[in-house]
């Protein structure tokens, strides 16, 4: 204790009249402290090993699944028209690729889903901001928007068909009703979790309502917003499939939903299974190729992930 006092006394003598020498000392001392304090990144695993660790387990699981399927099929437990072999599915799929039909199905469905998703984003973002920041709006329609999230959007298909007939409008309508609530709720959750100090910082720096939304609220809420978008994408895709499956008509072009519908009408199990697998692949593929990397970058930048 006495030694500490001695130290601070010495400090006081020099501190009020800083000289060049103290400034340099301060530099050195601060540099030393920084080097000690700053969290260090730690050893990195090699790229090949990381990719291997991410890719191999799901491939292994898929191989196991196909093997079990093949084995069950070999026991002839179910008749062929109910459970075809993996080989038959591969043949059907290859046939689609050879005729180029598969690209038509994929293009029709994916571009619809993407357009629907983008429109949903455009509607849900201002809606989410209003819900999060305007008490009256939240009180008035908050429960409705969260409630809509748990209403399966297939339920809208009959209504949309009656309103708009078998048209693209019907399909987009269903996609929007599926995706908008998820994205808006994600944004609201993201904004609710912002530490209250951050908007105050914006305010003391003179940010108006829009500057605050643009520079503070939206970026601060990005993790929640992204989670909402990811769910919104899943809902868009599901809703689209439901809409295509139910509202299938020649004028609407052939998407994956129609392909599945045709398979059902023809009682063609290989077609149905191929359709399901394609739908699954697109959903998972977009998630892995688009949302997972964006989410990873976002969380890493904020130090929210430990690797």
């Amino acid at each position: 204790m006495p030694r500490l006092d001695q130290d601070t006394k010495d400090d006081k003598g020099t501190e009020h009249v800083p000289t060049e020498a103290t400034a340099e000392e301060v530099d050195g001392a601060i540099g030393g402290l920084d080097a000690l304090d700053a969290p260090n990144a730690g050893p990195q695993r090699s790229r090949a090993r990381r990719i291997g660790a991410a890719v191999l387990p799901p491939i292994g699981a898929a191989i196991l699944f196909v093997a079990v399927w093949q084995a069950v099929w070999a026991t002839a437990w179910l008749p062929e028209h109910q459970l075809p072999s993996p080989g038959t599915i591969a043949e059907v799929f290859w046939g689609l690729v050879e005729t180029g039909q598969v690209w038509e199905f994929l293009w029709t469905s994916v571009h619809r889903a993407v357009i629907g998703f983008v429109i949903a984003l455009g509607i849900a973002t201002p809606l989410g901001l209003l819900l999060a920041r305007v008490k009256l709006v939240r009180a008035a329609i908050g429960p409705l928007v969260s409630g809509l999230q748990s209403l399966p959007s297939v339920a809208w298909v009959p209504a949309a068909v009656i309103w708009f007939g078998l048209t693209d409008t019907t399909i987009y309508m269903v996609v929007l009703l599926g995706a908008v609530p998820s994205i808006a709720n994600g944004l609201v959750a993201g904004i609710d979790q912002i530490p209250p100090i951050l908007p105050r910082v914006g305010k003391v720096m003179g940010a108006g309502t829009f500057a605050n939304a643009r520079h503070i609220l939206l970026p601060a809420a990005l993790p929640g917003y992204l989670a909402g978008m990811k769910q919104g994408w899943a809902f868009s895709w599901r809703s689209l499939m439901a809409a295509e499956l139910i509202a299938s008509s020649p004028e609407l072009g052939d998407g994956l939903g129609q392909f599945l519908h045709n398979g059902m009408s023809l009682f063609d199990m290989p077609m149905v299974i191929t359709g399901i697998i394609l739908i699954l692949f697109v959903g998972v593929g977009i998630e892995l190729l688009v949302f997972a990397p964006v989410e990873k970058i976002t969380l890493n930048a904020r130090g929210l992930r430990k690797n």
Partner: protein
Amino acid sequence: MAVALENAVGTEHAVRLEGLHKVFGAGRQAVTALDGIDLAVRPGEFVCLVGASGCGKTTLLNLIAGLEQPTSGRITLTTSRPAVMFQEHALMPWLTVNRNIELPLRLAGVGRAERAARVTELLSLVRLEGTGRKRPHELSGGMRQRVALARSLASAIQGSADGKHALMLMDEPFSALDAITRDLLQAELLRVWRATGTAVVFVTHDVREAVRLGQRVVLLSSRPGRVVDEWDVNGLTGADELVAVDTIGAKLREVISTHAAA
């Protein structure tokens, strides 16, 4: 020094508080945080506010910053919009150090080239050259505090661009730091204050820190917060400084013990 703030206007007060009252809540749960605060800060003056925990120091700064409205009384600011340094560093976790520091400039619509030049200057001022591209979570606590200091300086300088005095409000900015880092940052702050001539209202509950940094120390009582006493501690060194610390410390303890009795 290019970041110097001109004292262009010869006003007597940078901030003037008259009969400031602040009551939180209403009815039986009402808490009177501030009860008739009168205080004036001259341009370029360094004033330290000390007081027990919960006496309304943060509330007072929030009122001056315009984050809260007074229940009654008047606040006159002749300065530009005050720059605030909060108790937590309050950096934006998604922005790099550079981007954090330039945020007040971006919000004020300053062009890219000028922003970059200012940020470089400020980074060297707080001795953080070379960390501009890091994010807050990659820095130590002391480094984050220095980034926050640089950001509030950017905002003070931006405010003074229109020829008004600058004002900085600092709420226990160093209280969460270890003793050595705090010592160093106090020296930094004094250096910057001398170089820029901005008025500073500095909240702390550490009397030693208040005497070391301030020209004037103002003691607040709690529940309700009032100005109890104030001391001129400008340029005190050595034994005089220790005496001042003892006197103010004794008075602070006295004020706190009357609370305990009440």
